């Protein structure tokens, strides 16, 4: 219960869990960028006529990009909650009573 940060195992896991979405998002945006640069290089020689904007394609493209983030973050959050429920449930044998905390609400 000290205010200083110790890099305990639990804290390490928390850090990994927190940063996983950022890593995955940077990774996916990198992949998407690769695709776009590849397309740009192909058509670099020909001066492309002004591409018509197709609403449907733009909007669904955005939707799928955001869904990647949502599902990664969702998997992390829900996975964490499920892990906590299994690991820290009362009936788990690994889980010893912590005398210092219990009954704090009395």
């Amino acid at each position, binding site marked *: 219960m000290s205010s200083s940060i110790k890099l305990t195992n639990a804290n390490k896991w928390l850090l990994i869990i927190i940063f996983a979405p950022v890593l995955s998002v940077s990774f996916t945006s990198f992949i998407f960028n690769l695709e776009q640069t590849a397309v740009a290089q192909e058509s670099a020689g020909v001066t492309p006529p002004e591409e018509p904007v197709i609403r449907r394609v733009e909007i669904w493209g955005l939707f799928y990009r955001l869904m990647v983030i949502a599902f990664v973050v969702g998997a992390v*959050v829900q996975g964490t909650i499920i892990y906590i429920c299994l690991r*820290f449930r*009362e009936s788990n044998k690994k889980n010893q009573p912590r005398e210092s905390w219990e*009954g*704090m609400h009395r």
Partner: protein
Amino acid sequence: MVLEVKRPRPMWEILFSTHHTDIGLLYIFTSLAFLFLAGALAMAIRTELFLPGLQVIPDSNTFSRIFTVHGTTMLLLWVLPFSAGVGNYLIPIMVRYKDMAWPKLNAVAFWMIPVAGALIWIGFSDTGWTAYPPYSIIRAPGPAADMWIFGAKILGISSVLGAINFVVTILKMKHPDLPLMKISLFAWATLTTSFMIMVSLPTFAAALIMLYTDRLGVSGFFNPAMGGDPIAYQHLFWFTFHPEVYIFLIPAVGMLYEMIPKFSRKPIFSYQSGVTAFVLLSIIGFASWAHHMLATGMSFTEKTVFMVGTLAAVPASAMHVFNWIATMWGGRIKFAAPMMFGVGGIMLFFASGAGGVVNTALPLDFITHDSYWVVGHFHLILMGTVSLTLTGFLYYLFPLMTGRMYNERAAKVHFVLAFVGVILVFITQHVLGLYGMPRRYFDYVPIPEWIAMNQIATVGAWIVGLSYVLMLVNLIKSAVSGKHADMNDPFKIGEEYYDYTRREPHH
């Protein structure tokens, strides 16, 4: 061992009581009654949509009336009164005062609710719970729509009176030895919610009066034929009802802060961050109302402003989730039924929050707006997160209310059924919305995907309905003949429970 109320009291003594636990009981009882009434309407809606064509509802007009009353009842006659009822039970205990600040005002605020409920249910209006003009002015048949307006109006007054009472009780009647930063987070939730009610509701109250005079034809605020603007109503309406979403949510968040640390047998991870998130959310909640109106033809700048305002509310909600996860981490969690409902609520909270971000991400609103995605989204937050948490808290308060214990096994079955059912209904409805099915449709084109998903949703709804019937039976049976609860620690978790002696009226 168990202290029952010393002598059985006649009905009228509870009905005319001004004691906070009695009024809390009346609030909870009324809200549950309306939950089951509106739930029956929900079953009718889902059954009707099981297949295209006519099923159980005779015509589309009746269908419109049913979804209008279902929506109004669930929001204003189930979620709000239940939270107010729990507040009535717990706030005086938490601030260590003998009662609410103004017991008679408290009773008045409660007794408005049955009146308003009767107006809404006898009128059975068909305007949709949002009552958008000009439909509600020039087309909606009276007197149903007028009765709806007055019902909503009375409910607004009742909420404001209740809110004033809570604010005064918490700030002024708090025990002098108890600093504000030591009161329970549920009390903080009630405090911020009450302030939000007092700031936001007058706008809706004004809009209702304008709507009524428009219906009478003496004014034309929202009637384009008389030079009015229907969009003005939507601004006034959502300025109340977007904050209202947080008014529905924050008490449930406060209840989770009551249950999670106790069942995890661990102190709250960060009390300050909980308080900060409540205050932040209650302020930022006012910056996002027009995200309900992104498709009404607003300018690009307006849309950008309200998208940013909406996204700004997310970190505050995310802080709560972090707080709960970190509180449970390393604890020794007892999964009694209330805790199961709580954890289920948290899991669905993320899903509904993510859906909300999609709604506000500007162009995506053109996929989701007024489709079943939106229906799935707000039901996921109101049914999945808020109502499941409230249900869990109802189980948690049951020993305090009755002195008896509910049947734990039936309550767990209830949770599993309700959780699975909610996912079946509302996650499916998200996908249904992506396939383009609009909301408030009495009948739909027989597209195979639409039929399949509507059927999954309907079966899910039946499961949820069944689970709540199970709860009703369990609660009635346990209230009459359940095991007597150990009032010091009914859930056997070694933590404090509420002061049961409060059930003895002091006068």
